């Protein structure tokens, strides 16, 4: 600490941005719990082949629709398959749908937003009008259309969900790009002759990331839910895939007869989506420079 600044006390050290982020993030206890939950889930998903007690596609016609027991922690479904094992395996699929679709939509959307905000003019209005069109198109309909055109299957569900994430990312990034473009350090970089592509990738992109990260974390939850809705209208994952939404949609006839068939996959979706959202809230608080 400098001797010329006696007002600064020893505890008021200047922290690195990362340390600052951690300090604030750890203060949001719900976000920390949510993050740990998701970490655990990811580990469980990764370890599913080793920790799942049964084969997720293993039929047992003598043990159909049994309630939870010591042998089957979450009971069995209408084919006698172990629901707990299916949820573990399904975590791989559902988490991948969430992550991949948002990443895919995010990358395209960020690229469009950067170019749009940075270049301005005709390109900007073109991209923004296209985003308007995409936004005005009802999201689930777009998904129905894409799945109908490409055929059902988990990959196409990912594309479908990705496409309607694009315009929101594009708008978000365009907004921050516009304000960052005026920033002093960008001006300085430009003055010393840094080329446009470099400017966008090295100087502006990192500045837009905080808001993007927050949005990503929330969007993942939405994507998992959208995949479930697609299963509900019969355009989701293919059987016998243990994707959570498909399990929930498939078991919905048993509400009132064997409610455990939908309860556990429903709970899995609920907890996961909740956790992603709480994590997002925590990240927002930690990343937003205005919140002290």
């Amino acid at each position, binding site marked *: 600490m400098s001797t010329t600044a006696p007002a600064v006390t020893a505890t008021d050290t200047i922290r690195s941005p990362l340390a600052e982020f951690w300090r604030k993030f750890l203060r949001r206890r*719900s976000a920390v719990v949510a993050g740990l939950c998701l970490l655990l889930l990811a580990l469980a998903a990764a370890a599913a082949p080793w920790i799942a007690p049964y084969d997720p596609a293993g039929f047992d016609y003598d043990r159909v629709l049994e309630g939870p027991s010591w042998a089957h922690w979450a009971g069995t479904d209408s084919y006698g398959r172990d629901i707990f094992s299916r949820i573990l395996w399904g975590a791989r699929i559902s988490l991948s749908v969430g992550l991949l679709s948002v990443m895919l939509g995010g990358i395209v959307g960020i690229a469009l937003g950067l170019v749009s905000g940075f270049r301005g003019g005709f390109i900007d209005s073109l991209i923004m*009008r*296209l985003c*308007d*069109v995409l*936004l*005005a*198109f*009802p*999201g*689930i*309909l777009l998904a*129905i*259309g894409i799945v*109908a*055109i490409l055929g059902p299957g988990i990959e196409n569900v990912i594309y479908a969900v990705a496409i309607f994430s694009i315009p929101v990312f594009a708008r978000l990034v365009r907004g921050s790009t516009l304000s960052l473009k005026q920033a002093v350090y960008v001006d300085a970089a430009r003055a010393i002759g840094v080329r446009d592509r470099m400017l966008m990738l090295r100087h502006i992109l990192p500045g837009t990331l905080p808001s993007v990260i927050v949005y990503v974390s929330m969007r993942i*939850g*939405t994507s998992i*839910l959208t995949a*479930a*809705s697609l299963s*509900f*209208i019969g355009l989701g994952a293919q059987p016998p895939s243990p994707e959570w*939404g498909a399990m*929930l*949609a498939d078991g*919905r006839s048993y*509400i*009132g007869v064997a409610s455990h068939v*939908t309860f556990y996959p*429903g709970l899995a*979706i*609920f*907890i*996961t*989506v*909740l956790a992603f*959202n*709480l994590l997002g*809230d925590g990240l*927002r608080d930690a990343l937003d420079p*205005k*919140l002290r």
Partner: protein
Amino acid sequence: MLKYLVGRIAGIIPVLLVISVFVFGFVHLLPGDPARLVAGSDASPSDIALVRQDLGLDQPLWVQYGRFLSNAVQGEFGRSMKTKRKVSEEIGSRFLPTLYLTGAAMAWATLAGLLIGVASATKRGRWPDHVGMFVAVSGIAFPSFWLGLLMIDLFSVQLRWLPTSGYGTWQHFVMPSLTLGLGVAAVMARFTRSAFIDIAREDYVRTARAKGVPSRLVVWKHTLRNAMIPIITMVGLQFGFLLGGSIVVETVFSWPGLGRLLVDSVSYRDYTVIQAEILLFSLEFILINLLVDVLYALANPEIRYS
């Protein structure tokens, strides 16, 4: 203001044109032949040819598009391929149910969202904040068809409080609007909270506080008024999304709205109805955005449009 409005309205036209091309391409890209679907599962090839001719599907694509566009400009969309009823009647009869349901869902969700949001923001970091946000976020996390079916089982079958499904009385509104509004309430609560926190840091609010204005007055008069702008945007956006008719909620509660019509017409490849419906949704969405921008100007006179 007037000049701005005229400009904005003129700007809608190219967007709608692009959408019309989109929509037309979209329905024709869908695999499946409407003539075959309309003719029925045991129709002979000659029956199908007859239907195809009847529906004008034997014409070249650009002729079909031209007809669609010229009809659309006149506000006329021909007849439904499936029911042979006028598309305007088909959509007209389902528009109000969707509008009412959306209205009911938005009304309670906005109100609840605002209350939770304000409560959370004013008690930031304390337990009302945590509880409020947790409740709000839980609302987003339910797969809506599951929640809907669980509610039917509980409130209709077990407790006999509410009718299972359908449209008509206020009781019919309760479960669908609750299911539909839950996500909106969560978004609103969260959004209100952060808008509030942002504004509370603005200089004029601090000044007001420093001058000794009672804190309740600060909240309701200074902060809320200014937080209204982003909140209006959000309400508008959400309203636009919901007006598309929620396919899932309308299916679970057999609500005779636009969402179900859309699913039905997509599965029958009822081109005329799909096209008209999507154009309508897009127009609604664009108009709501416009309305939001105008409300902006009214809520905050400092915003000037050039």
